């Protein structure tokens, strides 16, 4: 159980600033994800929490105690590494027992806790195997059991699923979620896979170039991305450039060059008239031939792609390309290449993005 605060954390490697003044709070028992492309600083942040990197600036505070320079072996964290980092010269039992032995627990207690941890990850009966004799998924679970055996206050997971094949990834993902909810341990999870992040997390921090782009629940991050980076990173969205023409209350009229749309800015005050802005529209919110025709654009079908439950439609309006996703059984799925349609969208689904940081 732990509450983690990162305060103005920075880490440079030579000329590269890997983490740039990151401040966050991670609540007790939360499943918190650091999400971003490779090189965005998410792993460095995680390693700083583990005590494997010494920050150049800032503080790491756990339960009110500053642990910025506390050596890794004196923090009560469990970490699962991307490549699992199982000790190749020890069998499964010895691997899981390693941390307990290092802490000098009595032998009986060690045996008990190792059995317990292996049962937790459903690997009873594998104690005598060497890591080399296990499949990728099994190695992954040993790594998890090893991290949990010491009953850490914080569980750190560094891309734990990236070395598994697609099917196993789904299974293990559910498994990790179950373990985390059962144990209630504060968990920090690093991934570059947005679907993983959305499915698992209580909250997500999206990082880019060492900085935080946005922190929020999966629904907020997905539904109301703050920046173009977050919008593009999280999903397949339409990001369009335009100019503010009018402001009415919280609603903003944006001229996109090929038509005008009413938009909203969920997080802060509307921008002034005349300002150049970017707007984001999720493809599932674009309705070809929708009922409410007041807020929309005329466009031509360029491509129809049948994907089972849904169908992707790509439209062109002047120089602008727009993608819409509709249910395959809806009438809009019957549109064909070359046909014209009016794409409508509710104003609250046209999101004005913050300027790039």
């Amino acid at each position: 159980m732990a509450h983690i605060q990162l305060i103005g954390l920075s880490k440079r490697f030579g000329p590269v600033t890997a983490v740039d003044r990151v401040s966050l709070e991670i609540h007790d028992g939360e499943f918190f994800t650091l999400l971003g492309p490779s090189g965005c600083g998410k792993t460095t942040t995680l390693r700083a929490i583990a005590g494997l990197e010494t920050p150049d600036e800032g503080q790491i505070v756990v339960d009110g105690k500053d642990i910025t320079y506390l050596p890794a072996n004196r923090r009560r964290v469990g970490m699962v590494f991307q490549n699992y980092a199982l000790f190749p010269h020890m069998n499964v039992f010895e691997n899981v027992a390693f941390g307990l032995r290092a802490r000098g627990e009595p032998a009986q207690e060690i045996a008990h806790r190792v059995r317990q941890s292996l049962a937790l990850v459903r690997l009873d009966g594998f104690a005598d195997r060497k890591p080399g004799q296990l499949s990728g998924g099994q190695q992954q679970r040993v790594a998890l059991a090893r991290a949990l055996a010491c009953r850490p206050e914080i569980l750190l997971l560094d891309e734990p699923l990236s070395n598994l094949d697609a099917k196993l990834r789904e299974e293990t993902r559910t498994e990790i979620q179950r373990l985390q909810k059962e144990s209630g341990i504060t968990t920090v999870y690093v991934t570059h896979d947005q679907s993983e992040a959305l499915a698992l997390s209580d909250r997500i921090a999206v990082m880019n170039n060492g900085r935080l782009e946005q922190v929020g629940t999966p629904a907020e991050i997905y539904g109301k991305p703050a920046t173009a980076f977050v919008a593009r990173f999280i999903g397949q969205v339409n990001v369009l450039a335009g100019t503010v023409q009018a402001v009415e209350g919280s609603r903003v009229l944006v001229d996109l060059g090929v038509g005008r749309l009413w938009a909203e800015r969920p997080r802060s005050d509307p921008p002034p008239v005349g300002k150049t802005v970017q707007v984001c529209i999720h493809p599932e919110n674009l309705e070809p031939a929708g009922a409410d025709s007041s807020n929309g654009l005329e466009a031509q079908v360029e491509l129809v792609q049948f994907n089972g439950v849904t169908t992707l439609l790509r439209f062109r309006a002047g120089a602008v390309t727009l993608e819409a996703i509709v249910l395959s059984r809806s009438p809009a799925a019957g549109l064909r290449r070359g046909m014209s349609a009016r794409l409508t969208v509710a104003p609250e689904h046209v999101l004005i993005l913050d300027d790039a940081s």
Partner: protein
Amino acid sequence: MAGLNDPQPQAETRGLPRPSGQTWSKFWAVGRTYLLAAVVFAVLLSCIGYPLLQTVLLSFTRDGQPSLANYRDFFSLSRPVNLQALGNSLYLSVVTVVLCAAVGAALALFYHRYRFPGSQLFSTLVITPIVFPPLVSVVSYMWLFGEGGVVPGLIRDIFGLSKPPFGLSGFGGILLIHVYTQFIYFYLLVSAALARFDHSLEEAAYVLGASRWYTLRRVTVPLLLPAFVAASLIVFMVSMSSFAAPYMLGGRFRVLSMQIFVSKLNGDMDMAAAQAVILGMICILVVLALRAYEGRSQYTFAGKGLGIRAVPITRGSARHLAFLGGVLLSLVLMLPHIMLVIIALVPQGTWTWQTLPPVLAFDNFRFLFTRPDLWLPVRNSVLMAGIATVAGVIFALVASYLLTKGRFRGRGLLDALVMVPWALPGTIIAISMIIAFNRPLPTTFGKVLVGTVWMLPLAYFINFMPLIVRATSASLQQLDNSLIESALTLGASWFTVFRRVILPIVMPGVLSGALLMFVQAFGEFTMSILLYVVDNRPISIGILERMQFFELGEAAVLGVLQVVLMMIVLIITRRYLGARATQAFF
């Protein structure tokens, strides 16, 4: 709500008071690496940097006065002894490279290309020359081909000549021994390149319409070239540093490494320093060229390299011919070993005028346990090589850790400094130690080291430490950082991490490096002859002494001991390191 989700919250100005003891923790977290690096640098600078610096300084003095006289004399055209020696060294090295390339590459191609009964065994036996310490191989060759040697004697008898037709000495003698001991570099490097070589590249060239000649010129040769260049540079360097062969056989054919020895004997240390600087510069230049070249032209073959397929020889007569060739070649390569064993089995005084020995017995081996003049050198070498190796292991563990896992400024410099002794001939290391340690120094606890038994173990440490650093670094490189890190996050102390994670994983590498260092130090000759004192005569000096007393059998026994030890070490290290062991032997 909005505040919490802001990308860069106000928190930067917040912050908690730091608990006491944080300054020390921070220093330890950041400074640990630098502390270790400082220790390693201190050892390197006092053992290698300082002696070399003193040597360079001394080379610019004559009788205590700053002067260029040494270099003027060196390059003097009126007394061109030194220039001639330099020329001889260069000439000898170039010819050695050419001959070694021809022999080594031909053998590598032959054994990789064709498969016939016994070809596997024969290709392994090619490496037999590496289990020969330099002095022992020279001695064996003298017994075989020298004046009064067995082979010229046999030829004389068979053809009824009045005197032996030839006797190994001078340039030709040195060259033969160089080729015998050094063609291996070409054989191994070219073999490795051939094994990596992806035959489908040649096939791709043919499919693209290239002729055989064009493919050879544009595909095959460029891909094998790095192996040739690397082997050439190594052989050149080893030949330049060679000492045992010129010392035993050179006669009036003087080379640069011998000149250093002669200057030292004459007490002309100023000149010895200048000669050492010139020889050292050449060796360092070659190593720099090697490094630059290796950095530039490492080809990684995409996909799984198929290697050049070995073609079975099917025609009966060709098979027999190839088999016969393999047997003959292996015999030629093992002839010196066989000779050494035979001499070791000849009791003193039984072999006088005969071409072949009339009596063989184990008398000489018994002396090993009864005669102090035989077992003392063995004991001394075991002790001194042991001390050097233990120091080497400790030093290598720390240095390799810094080299592979450390993040600190100056790592490149550390890497270079560690490898300097590998590049320098033993003569230079010995001479620079004599120059530096002939007065009390703080680094030698205020003692004069010259003339004490400590010079040799220190020299062995300096010269062979790179072997073990390289072996240890190689296995540390394979040790994933995350293993260390996960052990730390599991709460293990640094000592536990070292004992339970790092050591078990790098042990094979460390052990192999240690064994290699031990055998090299055990049979070392060049530095030994320059630095030994009465109380620590090592085994190579023991061999020389026995030869001077014409106790050839006793000398051979000491040689057999070294060869057997090297064979055991080669077998053990091959188990741990695989084929890399053979290359690590140099």
